[in-house]
């Protein structure tokens, strides 16, 4: 019974309570930040900020329109980071979270290359660095609670529940307010489907969510190529061995004559 979260961008008021709750629950330090020209702070996720609110001012019919979007790990159904990790330090739990096992990590950062959402962050300042990313509060979920961020959210923009219920709720909102929402649930197909879903009244690219992603899991490309590799290796070995035996046989036949 996997869990999901629905992020309704139309309900987010940009309070950043989710950021504070996340830092509090995970015991992350406060960071010194610089003015980035926007009210979102910090400007992106990093090794001590698993989630951030990003701000976008757009043009509406009646003037400027503000959008606030929470960004965090998407907890993909078939995570590219987990497929890419050479030591299995990232795994997908049955109840939804993609979690990181720091005890297994070697710091190769290949997960950072593989993630289509550019989620995993690295502790560049540490002598013995780890990867850092949202945990979906997997321990809280196992204890029957909801994640810190969804619990804190005052406006109902974050809704935690069973995946089927969340998907139905999302579809229901799109159906009952077709003029309000764009007719697309972001995360239903992207990168093979994610546990965290977004519905919005503005283009997802406006919310800094990539719309150029494929509809299947990204791990597949590399895995297909890897599947070919043993055959190629054996083929080369067979060709060389075959040539050697044939040419060797020719020489031996010539010698006999």
């Amino acid at each position, binding site marked *: 019974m996997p869990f999901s979260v629905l992020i309704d961008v139309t309900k987010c008021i940009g309070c950043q309570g989710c950021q504070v709750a996340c830092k509090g629950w995970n015991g992350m330090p406060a960071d010194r930040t610089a003015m980035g020209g926007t009210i979102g702070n910090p400007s*992106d*996720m*990093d*090794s001590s900020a698993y989630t951030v609110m990003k701000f976008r001012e757009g043009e509406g019919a009646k003037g400027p329109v503000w959008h606030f979007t929470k960004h965090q790990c998407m907890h993909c159904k078939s995570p*590219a980071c987990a*497929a*890419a*990790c*050479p*030591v*299995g330090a990232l795994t997908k739990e049955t109840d939804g979270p993609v979690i990181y096992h720091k005890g*297994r*990590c*070697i*710091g*190769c*950062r*290949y997960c*950072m*290359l*593989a993630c*289509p959402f*550019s989620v995993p*962050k*690295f*502790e*560049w*300042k*540490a*002598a*013995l*660095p*780890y990867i850092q990313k949202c945990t979906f509060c997997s321990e809280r979920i196992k204890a029957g609670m909801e994640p810190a961020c969804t619990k804190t959210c005052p406006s109902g923009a974050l809704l935690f529940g069973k995946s089927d219920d969340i998907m139905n709720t999302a579809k229901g909102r799109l159906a009952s307010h077709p003029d309000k929402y764009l007719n697309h649930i972001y995360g239903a197909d992207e990168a093979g489907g994610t546990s965290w879903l977004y519905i919005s009244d503005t283009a997802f690219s406006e919310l800094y969510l*990539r719309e*150029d*992603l*494929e509809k299947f899991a*990204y*791990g597949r*490309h*590399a*895995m297909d*190529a*890897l599947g*070919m*590799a*043993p055959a*190629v*290796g*054996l083929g*080369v*070995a067979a060709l*060389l*061995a075959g*040539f*050697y035996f044939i*040419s060797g046989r020719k020489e031996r036949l010539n010698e006999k004559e």
Partner: protein
Amino acid sequence: MRKAVYSFIIIGLLLMLYRAFAGLGAVTALSDYQPWGLVKAVNIFFAATLAAGSFVVAAAAEVFGARRFRPLVRPVLLMGFICHTFVLIALLYDVGRPLDVWRIITNPHGTSALLWTAWTEVAYTSVMVVELLPEVLHGRAGLVSTIEKVKVPLVVLSAALAVVYQSTLGTLFLASPQHIVPAWSGPWLNWLFLLSAVPAGLGMVVIESSISGRYGRRSADPVVLRQAGGMMGVFLVLYMLIRLTDLVIRGAFTGGSRLGDVWLVTELCVGGLLPLVLLLVKRVRETGAGLVAASALTLLGVFMNRVGVTIIGWVLPPGASYFPSALEFIASAFFIVAAVSLYWYASGRLALKAYHLPETQPLD
């Protein structure tokens, strides 16, 4: 000259020590937007292609019976082994937790392209060590003759491993199609990395032979140089055909930025088409200088390709940029200088001990 090299090596070792305590952020300009940079591109991905010459030369000499290549096998094998050793050293420098890197052997995760890259690298290097043992074992005649007996299977095994290894290096980047501009991504990266490694390796063989010949280590057999150069040309044609076809099919002739466009055009023309054209000219093919020039251009092309995939073609969010820091350049140069120094020293020692100059070896 020697003093400068030793001083630089000491500086490099101090840098290694500093990195161990200060972390990667202090010695690189890498960031969450650019997790892999100069050392990965140059000292791991490009250096790995230079080692590819050893399996081609060994296959030519031992499987295809090109006896003129036999004197070349040991030096090229040594060069390949040192290239791989420094790939591993650069990897330990670049990886975040080098003390835990053994987990790649004990806790493998089979869907990872990086795992298979590491395993084939280790396997290939181990086979190279076995192939090189006769060169260094002088008192153990029994072991040496056993290894000599299985020479051909070892060469076949190393060729198979090398082919898989070079292709897994390209497979790595198949996991990131949305992070790399079309010019350096696409579905054929594994084939392209493999096909470009062969001319790069052969180009390195030509350059190494010429340099060794020039400094009196071995006389460079001009016929061998010509044949190696010719093989390099053939594989370069094959590589360029596939690369250009791939770019045409995907309509991918853009490098993502002005720098990227210039880089791409330079890589394809100066590093791909120009050496091909040069090799068609008889004077180039028949002279050492001409072959070295064509080889250098080929290596430049492969170098630009690897840097293209890792750095130039890596998509950064607006406002972010990456240029390697001074310490990254120093680290990269250190690995190169140390590798070349070690090769020069080792090949000199081995030549003195057991290796006869080609003048005394009968050439059929």
